[in-house]
């Protein structure tokens, strides 16, 4: 009993460390990549080689900000919303296979757990938008819901095809069953659908209506300041890391690779996917809300269903 408790604490600390490292690293990476694409360097000064301390400096600044809660806001929900955003991100790290034996808990329904828990983002956004007592926040939240709900179906259906091929919902099993060919080669349509739906679920460009509204008018996190806003921000980058890890696990072969240790392969693949996502952000313009809905329901959903049908045929016949 005591040994299990100790292991639990160790795993908790490891996940917390990984999540913090990801938040710091991915924000820095985003700013550097954004800079390089725009003919400039990113942060260069805080932390002499290429400003690697910039995110930590930003976090310290955010900690020292005043905590403002609007007078007419729904206090309990307002305070709970950032927590509802960040705790599922933390939970999602449970099913990510870092190595052949490096997984917090190899659930047999790992994939189902992952996509069930990642749906809490929607709830957090609703809570934030409603509790802010700000009609623009509410509108932003409603649009965010439309986007997130619309893209959950293609996301999950494209994963069902993978589950069919590998025969298990456990993430470790899916990685192991990619020993011959990674699923990106066997399921190109599935990969494309999953990637686009994942971009929409993360709220990243070209589907960043959630964030862009914040820049332009308002959004679900307008009324949040200081550390509360930082929770949303960290949750976004935590989700980015976790979703990249999931893409690497489901389609790129997880921790498998020839020479290097498995964990290095896994991290390489995860950060490669994260890099591509960041690269996409600074390349493409934003879609309109109607284009967004059209893409999700009229193109991605049929594509994922066709993919599932073809995969089922293959599995049944061969």
């Amino acid at each position, binding site marked *: 009993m005591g040994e299990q408790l100790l292991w639990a604490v160790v795993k908790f600390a490891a996940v917390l460390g990984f999540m913090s490292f990801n938040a710091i690293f991915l924000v820095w990476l985003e700013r550097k*990549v954004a800079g*390089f*694409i*725009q*003919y*400039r*360097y990113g942060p*260069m000064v805080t932390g002499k080689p290429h400003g690697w301390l910039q995110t930590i400096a930003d976090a310290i600044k955010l900690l020292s900000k005043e905590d403002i809660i609007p007078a007419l806001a729904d206090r309990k929900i307002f305070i709970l919303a950032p927590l509802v955003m960040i705790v599922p991100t933390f939970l999602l790290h449970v099913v990510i296979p870092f190595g052949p034996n490096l997984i917090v808990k190899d659930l047999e329904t790992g994939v189902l757990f992952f996509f069930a828990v990642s749906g809490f983002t929607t709830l957090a956004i609703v809570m934030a938008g409603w509790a802010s007592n700000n009609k623009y926040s509410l509108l932003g939240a409603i649009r965010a819901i439309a986007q997130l709900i619309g893209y959950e179906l293609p996301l999950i259906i494209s994963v069902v095809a993978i589950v069919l091929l590998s025969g298990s919902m456990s993430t470790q099993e899916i990685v192991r069953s990619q020993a011959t060919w990674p699923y990106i080669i066997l399921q190109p349509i599935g990969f*494309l659908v999953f990637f686009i739906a994942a971009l929409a679920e993360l709220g990243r460009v070209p589907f960043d209506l959630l964030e862009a509204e914040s820049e332009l008018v308002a959004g679900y996190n307008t009324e949040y300041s200081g550390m509360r806003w930082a929770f949303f921000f960290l949750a976004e980058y935590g989700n980015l890391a976790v979703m990249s890890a999931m893409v690497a696990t489901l389609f790129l072969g997880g921790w498998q690779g020839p020479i290097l240790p498995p964990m290095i392969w896994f991290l390489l693949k995860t950060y490669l996917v994260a890099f591509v996502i960041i*690269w*996409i952000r*600074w*390349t*493409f313009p934003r879609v309109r809300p109607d284009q967004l809905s059209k893409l999700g329901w009229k*193109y991605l959903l049929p594509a994922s269903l066709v993919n599932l049908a073809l995969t089922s045929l293959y599995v049944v016949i061969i």
Partner: protein
Amino acid sequence: MLREIGSALLNLAKGLGLTFKKMLEPKYTMHYPEERWHVTPAFRGMPALLSDTETGQLKCTACGICERTCAVEAIKLETVVGEDRRKQLTGYQVDMARCVACGLCAESCPFEALTMASNYELAGYTREQLVYNLSELAEIGKDYTLNNQKPLPQSVFSTYFAEGGFCYLKSDGSKQSAPKPRTRMGKRGLVNEVSQK
């Protein structure tokens, strides 16, 4: 429809390729303060009082033309009439918070006692710091003597081409020319230079 999707994906990939190439190209950032703009001699920074190299006296005769010419009333003179019934300069004040660096004062000075210095880092913590008095202006003017004569403001173009265009100094003192502009005048207006060599 499949063809549309295919061509759409191809164009998306082309866009990604373009931004990836941009990541690998040289950057335009000037790492201030290690690298600064190297201004041409005709650059108009702040006014400075010139001294005569032989006698060491200020060339200013307190005529007051600069004070009257200044469009924003940034220059204030204080004079006293000496025994030889000539005006002598006791105080000279330039309020850099008002000065717009137009150069009219230097242009209008009949004795070439005023010049536009080249320093552009003029910020201060208080408004009092921004008001330069006689000794400070003379001190700044010491860098610009007869041997290092600054041309009048209207010859800015001649010095631009002579110096080879705008450039900035790197930390080791060498000059780094500013990047070539990415637009040129095409047949029907400005054209972006997208293709790289």
